[in-house]
């Protein structure tokens, strides 16, 4: 499977995701933001970091960069797109995903391991997970507080477009297991066609038990499936 990781000035999880993809046997290439042609890809990853220093608004400038039209075209043609953290923010700025990521409720950057639940395991991204499986995964963001309008929220639920929800170790989804104030504990969402996933937690940080755990591995194996 061929993957492309888009690199913006200020991306800083680009190496981590490349390492994870290569470890999982993806044929990966890095694509600089000034490129105007995207190499043929089965998966496009928009990585985490602080693209353009988060200036103006997280993801706003990257959402208007040269390469992004190519990403939008490919996504509309059905190419799989994964946006992690800042990548999720960028995808909402492009309109590929609806909703937005607000400042964390406690107004602070948060880095810690938290729990999420696989809400929908019937997608290209999550088919190797059990339904409602609980994952321990790292978050690291300032603006991860997902918000959207009531109609979109309804749509997310009706069409099963919620990918992950923050929960506690027993899988309970409640306020105390919500690290950043996200609407209904939403940690990741799909677009209508479920070929685009945006998520705040970092699966690429969870592929090596020496530094963390392997709870992120199945996301990549699902894509290869």
């Amino acid at each position, binding site marked *: 499977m061929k993957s492309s990781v888009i690199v913006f*000035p200020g991306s*800083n999880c680009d190496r981590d995701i490349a390492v994870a993809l290569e470890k999982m046997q993806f044929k990966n290439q890095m694509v600089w933001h000034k490129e105007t042609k995207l190499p043929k890809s089965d998966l496009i990853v928009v990585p985490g970091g*602080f693209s353009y*220093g988060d200036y103006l608004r997280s993801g706003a400038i990257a959402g208007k960069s040269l390469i992004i039209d190519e990403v939008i075209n490919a996504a509309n043609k059905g190419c799989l797109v994964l946006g992690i953290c800042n990548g999720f923010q960028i995808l909402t700025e492009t309109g590929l995903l609806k909703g937005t990521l607000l400042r964390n409720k406690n107004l602070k*950057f948060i*880095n*810690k391991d938290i729990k999420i639940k696989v809400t929908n395991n019937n997608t290209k991204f999550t088919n190797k997970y059990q339904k409602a499986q609980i994952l321990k995964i790292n978050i*690291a963001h300032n603006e991860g507080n997902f918000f959207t309008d009531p109609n979109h929220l309804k749509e997310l639920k009706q069409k099963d477009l919620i990918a992950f929800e923050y929960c506690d170790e027993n899988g309970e989804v409640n306020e105390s297991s919500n690290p950043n104030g996200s609407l209904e504990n939403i940690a990741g969402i799909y677009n209508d066609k479920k070929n685009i996933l945006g998520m705040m937690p*970092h699966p690429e940080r969870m592929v090596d038990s020496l*530094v963390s755990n392997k709870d992120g591995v199945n996301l990549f194996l699902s894509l290869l499936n």
Partner: protein
Amino acid sequence: MKITDQIVEKHGLKKEEFEKIKNLLKREPNLLELGIFSAMWNEHCSYKSSRLHLKNLPTKGKQVIQGPGENAGVIDIGDNDAIVFKIESHNHPSFIEPYQGAATGVGGILRDVFTMGARPIALLNSIHFGSPNHFKTKSLLNGVVSGIGGYGNCIGIPTVAGETKFDESYNENILVNAMAVGHADKDKIFYSKAKGVNKSVVYVGSKTGRDGIHGASMASAEFDDNSDEKKPTVQVGDPFTEKLLMEACLELMKDNSIISIQDMGAAGLTSSSVEMASKGSLGIELELEKVPCREENMTPYEMMLSESQERMLIILNDGREKDAKKIFDKWDLDFVVIGKTTNSNNLTLKYNNKVEGEIPIDALASEAPVYDRKWVRKKISKTKIDLKKLKKINIEDALIKIISSPNHSNKSWITNQFDQMVMSDTALKSGSDGAIIRIHNKDKAIAVSVDSSANYCKSHPITGGKQIVCENWRNLVSVGATPLAITNCLNFGNPENEKIMGEFAECLEGIKEACEFLNYPVVSGNVSFYNGTNKKNINPTPVIGGVGLIKNLSKPMNLKFKKDNSVILLVGKTFGHLEQSCFLRENYSIIDGMPPEVNLLNEKNNGENVLKLVHDNLVLSMHDVSSGGLIVALSEMSIASNYGVKINKPKKLTNLLEYFFGEDQSRYVLEIDPKNQLKVEKILNENNIYFENIGFTQKDYFEIEGELKTNVKDLFKTNNEWYNIY
């Protein structure tokens, strides 16, 4: 413009220093030249008060590739891998403007590391604040923590370890020390020494603005009530630009374009150009109208003294300008040839072809003043604390008081604001004795830790100096690493006060002795004097940042108990030394007497043998005993793991408070699987290492036979409260 006494004073120069300048130049300097002298001759850049003492420190060893004098120290960790690291203070700016002060402290130390060709892999910090009750402390804490996080998180280097302390001696002068650690190929290290005449001097990075003019001079003076007026001398950081600059420099370093490279840190363009020329015994000529400026009508004086961040000076090999510029264009950064090296041995500053200033390089560097400041030895305190004369306290109450205190509370409120995981090589995060960072794509790792013990240093600077080196060494051993070398950040008060100078001299004696004995050389560092306000000086606070090597990282060692029914061994002798202890400070507000004695022989033997046990896979978890004594060490292991302990009453020492809270040195708590107990005891006995079998781990309860039994969950709660309610 005539240089008046007032102008000289405003530049932080003494009368006799101004006379020396006139002698060196054989004429009066103009304002630009005076500004440059003030930038180079201030304490921060010239080390004029500390140099005589610093040169006594051990800086050599088989493991050392580059000692002090470069942008950072470099050590060898085998297989062509080198570790580049340094610690630096940003105390004064952080007190005036906490967010930007702390952020640019991180930015500056990162540049020191990647300037040498290393990719930064870890950040650490040591931050000291005033009393939590002081009205400034809360906002300073908030600002500094978000500043450190704001910079490190954005540039994408994990902040993996640190220490945070509160003491009223920092009420009006906080300490913010930042350490950066990088990895380089041993055969691809870059230095600042210029070579060759007529080589292009290139300015890269951000544009120059009017921020931070005279920052280094500001950092070389005590504060007074008008310190807020110094705000414009604080620089403003832009981690995004630094990220681009870092990537661009590392990309350029892949080929052979660079002769030498130096970041523009304190005293900006002045110190970088002078240092490069001085090291290469060359002259340097700058055409200042070419300097990329952020603001209009900047004068040569402002350009030379600006401390705008995220800038570098590079001397390039002939004909490499075009290719090098391509790289900086790619990253949208300025790249301008602003001058050349010369054989004049002068710093020559031109503006539109007119010479605006000309100073012999030697006058700025090697001729800078060196002071043999008067100092006095600290009187030894003979106070012995008699517990019988103090109000009775039980062990549990004393323990709770300590682990709920600001200095011992769990610091996840702070560390959760730092990205500790980015780069995906952090094998052990903060919360243990040290952090472990894997070398990318390899089986080996380094361990890092920063430590200070200002109370010990205040009461007896020689012992204090020794103790911090040992504590740092012990912290690396406790995560299974072989300690290799240190960097130090020496934070002291006013060196013109002979008692303060005495604290400095004696702390350095202690550091020297311990480093020599442990073969633990100093490879880089920084001195910060004049930490005080209105003549009130801070406690002497040398901070040690250590790096150790783990050759084969199969299972990172940490302080979490792994299971119940393990045997708990205490390695090292317990004498019950309570003077200067956390127990007396937190429970009785007594800060008196001598710190615990440091026996370097025991330190080395205990550490080396414990390390052998770790390498033989005989240790399940481990923690060193430090502030708070044995019981606090045990509670930290329990709180981190949710396993309790059952500790026997000690047989020899009768006073339980002394036994459990004494801060005797060179001690470790080890968790041993019962099946390995005999083997471990045999090894320790054979090597004449003193140890005691003090009990075992159990589920749920933290227990001392007949004295105390409490739920680990409650201890956890007690330990995690303070920051969240502060």
